[in-house]
């Protein structure tokens, strides 16, 4: 049987570094970006066997700012990934008869996705290609996401992406207040975000997500409400809203240390989350994860892979993989990554095989982020009935405190529990 696999590709470059950002990203000259892309393609080739033998459920180009690249470059990258995945593996194993392999649900909420990337099957190669510009009502397909920053896209570029097979666009809006955008060090205005969204729609993106950040220093509940309303006016199919986390090493952190900015008070932060939930739900976006909202059917299948603790392959600098119970990560610095690849060496700098109890802890930590929680039956099957018994024991006081719910064969967090996710996970593991 072909394994289900999600693929993450990291493109670590940005036009400039935002003031709060601690992702693996930085500015780079065009020549460096090109060499990096070439290295990335080499890594894809090295993974040909795995890719060819897998059923690719989702692809996600993240960054950095993937759209710092030309549309054609990104199209070429996806093309290559597709081709590699479409070639049967050279392994001695007999190809399976396709059958059900082409139809797989990508999430247990009943909103499934089928993939044409069903690994080796008797279906002719052309049939395994990504659908080009499927109409919105088309059958679920492999989700292919590209992250984009407003100032780096226009209709023409987005058309190239859409035609290449990208079918989901995640736009980094962050705020719709120009003063806030400036404070964040973003390179675009609110207006540019709106234009980018319009362009995406025009280019045929029917699955569009916006990223927002709230709990900014000095932000009021009202200014956050305004940002949310303007975001929702653009009718995104999906929305991610994160409370700002001020990380060490960022200019924000330095300003925090210098006492120039102060984090938002807890009560205010919670009020912002509350408003987010209310306004999103009123706009038809249901919360399905701590910080993620979607129109039914538009949940991000790629990220759900992470939260369900399922397997994924990460490609590129600093990208993480979870394969065969091993978590591994590539070198973070793009130059080092590239040097390793170019020298024919492994770019991996970290790998750890998880002990069963650690794997369970991670499954809980990730799974309880989702509103639907985890199926006890699945957990028992994967980690043994006894450890699930023990888990339920530990859950008891949390159930009493109304932080955890156990019922209908599931364990999940209540709304209050989600706000205390770390605390609850500590007590459950």
């Amino acid at each position: 049987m072909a394994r289900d696999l999600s693929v993450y590709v990291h493109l670590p470059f940005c036009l400039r570094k935002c003031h709060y950002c601690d992702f693996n990203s930085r500015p780079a000259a065009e020549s460096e970006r090109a060499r990096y892309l070439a290295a990335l393609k080499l890594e894809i080739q090295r993974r040909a066997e795995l890719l060819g033998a897998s059923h690719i459920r989702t692809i996600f180009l993240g960054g950095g700012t993937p759209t710092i690249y030309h549309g054609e470059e990104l199209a070429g990258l996806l093309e290559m990934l597709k081709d590699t995945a479409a070639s049967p593996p050279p392994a001695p194993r007999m190809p399976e008869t396709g059958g059900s392999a082409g139809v797989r649900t990508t999430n247990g909420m009943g909103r499934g996705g089928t993939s044409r990337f069903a690994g080796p099957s008797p279906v002719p190669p052309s049939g395994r290609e990504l659908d080009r510009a499927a109409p919105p009502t088309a059958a679920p397909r492999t989700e292919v996401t590209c992250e984009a920053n407003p100032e780096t896209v226009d209709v023409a570029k987005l058309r190239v992406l859409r035609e290449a097979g990208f079918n989901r666009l995640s736009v980094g809006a962050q705020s719709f207040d120009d003063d806030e955008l400036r404070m964040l060090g973003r390179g675009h205005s609110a207006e540019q975000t709106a234009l980018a969204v319009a362009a995406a729609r025009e280019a045929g993106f029917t699955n569009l997500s916006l990223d927002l950040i709230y709990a900014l220093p000095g932000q009021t509940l009202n200014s956050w409400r305004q940002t949310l309303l303007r975001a929702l006016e653009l009718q995104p199919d999906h929305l991610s809203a994160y409370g700002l986390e001020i990380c060490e090493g960022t200019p924000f952190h330095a300003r925090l240390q210098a006492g120039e900015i102060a984090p938002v008070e807890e009560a205010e932060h919670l009020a912002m989350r509350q408003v987010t939930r209310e306004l999103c739900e009123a706009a038809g976006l249901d919360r399905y994860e701590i910080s993620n909202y979607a129109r039914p059917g538009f949940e991000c299948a790629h990220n759900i892979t992470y939260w369900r603790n399922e397997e994924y392959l990460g490609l590129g600098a600093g990208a993480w993989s979870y394969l065969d119970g091993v978590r591994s990560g590539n070198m973070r610095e793009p130059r080092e990554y590239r040097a390793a690849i170019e020298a024919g060496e492994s770019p991996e700098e970290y790998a750890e095989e998880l002990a069963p109890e650690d794997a369970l802890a991670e499954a809980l930590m990730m799974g309880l982020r989702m509103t639907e929680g985890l199926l006890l039956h699945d957990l028992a099957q994967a980690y043994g009935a006894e450890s699930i018994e023990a888990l339920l024991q530990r859950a008891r006081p949390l159930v009493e405190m109304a932080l955890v719910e156990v019922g209908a064969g599931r364990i999940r967090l209540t709304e209050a529990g989600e706000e205390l996710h770390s605390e609850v996970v500590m007590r459950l593991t």
Partner: protein
Amino acid sequence: MATEAKADRPKVVQRVPQENVRNFCIVAHIDHGKSTLADRLLEVCGNVEEAGEQMLDTMDLERERGITIKSSAVRLLYEADDGELYQLNLIDTPGHVDFAYEVSRSLQACEGAVVLVDVSQGVEAQTVANVYLALEAELEIIPVINKIDVPNVEPEMALKEMDDAFGFHPDEIVMTSGKSGVGVHELLEAIVKRVPAPDEDADAPLRAMIFDSEFDVHQGVIAYVRVFEGRVRPGDEIRMMSSGKRFDVSRTGFFSPAMVDVEELRAGDVGYITAGIKGVKDSRVGDTITCAKKGAEEPLPGYREAQPMVFCGLYPVDNADYEALKDALDRLSLNDAALKYDRETSAALGFGFRCGFLGLLHMEIVQERLEREYDLDLVATAPSVVYRITLTDGTFVEVDNPAQFPPRELIEVIEEPVVEANIMCPQRYVGQVIKVSDDRRGAYLKQEYIWGDRVALHYRLPLAEIVVDYFDALKSATRGYATLDYELAGYVPEDLTKVELMINGDPVDALAIICHRQFAESRGRVIARKLKEAIPRQLFEVRIQASIGSRVVASTRIAPLRRNVTEKCYGGDVTRKRKLLERQKEGKRRMKAIGNVQVPQEAFMSILRLNEED
């Protein structure tokens, strides 16, 4: 612990006449290069091939805290320029008021003291204090300016300070570098020429003073002694003059720093004795060893039994570790004559021990050793002194645990221990010392001028104030220049009361303190506030109250934690995030559950240091 000399190694132990013996110590501020210089002396005298690790301090803890808890003594053989062979005994000294008595015994074992000053740091406060003690012990002082290899530093400043502080003239001062070895020869010559030889009677009945003792699992106690009269050799039966206990000497010798046996130790010598002694409680610092038969009539002067002055409860965070804690205390006390402990139970903390210590530092050291060497997680309750209480029915009790204070209506009189403290400082700090002492219920007794601009202030103070933070407060008020020693001076009646703390309505016995009624309310408030700071937010609201009798004097609440979530979490670094949570969880595990409130270990101590903000 020094390694034992190989039995088959030929003992080329040169005996030198008493007039060629020199007993000395080195007085120095931390980091001024004492260890390096000591190693260099050892090297020059051929004790070690090459100075490697610093040899005099042995315990990790000591090194970390920059203090020496235990003394040790090393013997050097030095062939001086006059062609004679000298036996130099270098005695190490501890350096904190808790161990002031041990210091005084170490100094008593010497005739000379090398006073070491870093050329770029100059004379530090602690050095002044210790020099004063050395002068009191009538030691010959050899002033040394060290680290003269340091580039671009002129010794003028240090020379001037030596003159100002002690009146040492440049021509008396030896200039050395422990690092390069410059001046080490001159220093050895100065020791030989200036430190007087012991002049004692080797034919009188044995009198040897124990200035340190250390327990070793293989040979029992190793007593470091200075022989003042007579001689002692393996096979002799000896008697501890304080207890009358008798032992058969199995070995006599010295440290080189390896243990080297000698046929006998005699008047003037410094060295060790082992005699199958099972714990240091039978080999007390300051005690006099004599021979069992026809022994000395009188012990050497100055013996003082180590007396615990401060008590606190020690409890395992995990009740299952009770036995392990008991074992650990049993073992530690083999090497710590001052440590006392008895079982005790606390409603809040479960089973544990009431332990007695010389002072706060001693308490902290023991606690740290238990945690580090025996891998125990402990909760220590706030330290207390011993109160004497006369009950209304005329009976009399001693209480060293605030939790066990009798109800107020049963108390006729409470007496608390007081000390007479002798604080020495330069004239310019007198005002600060008076303020710090007055703030802590001190009663001024008198003031004396010592020499130069040094002043000695005498105060009577409640011991309870001393154990809290008196010395720390003194040091910070005088920028380190004050020295303190004190002696118990009996008990006096005081208007004391118990302040109780409640967490979510339940009194927590381990958090109770005794204090003067005048300060009770403000202390209650400060403690409540400190607890609020020390206890992390819980999933529910926590109420903290302080009460005196049935009257609540302070009340505060810790709002429940409502948000603790990583909002952005995808496929990167999942394992690292899990490990982060695990570490946080580990931190929680080390907290003590009181009811269902997780209370960190520090919270119990946080109620202690109050005066800073009072």
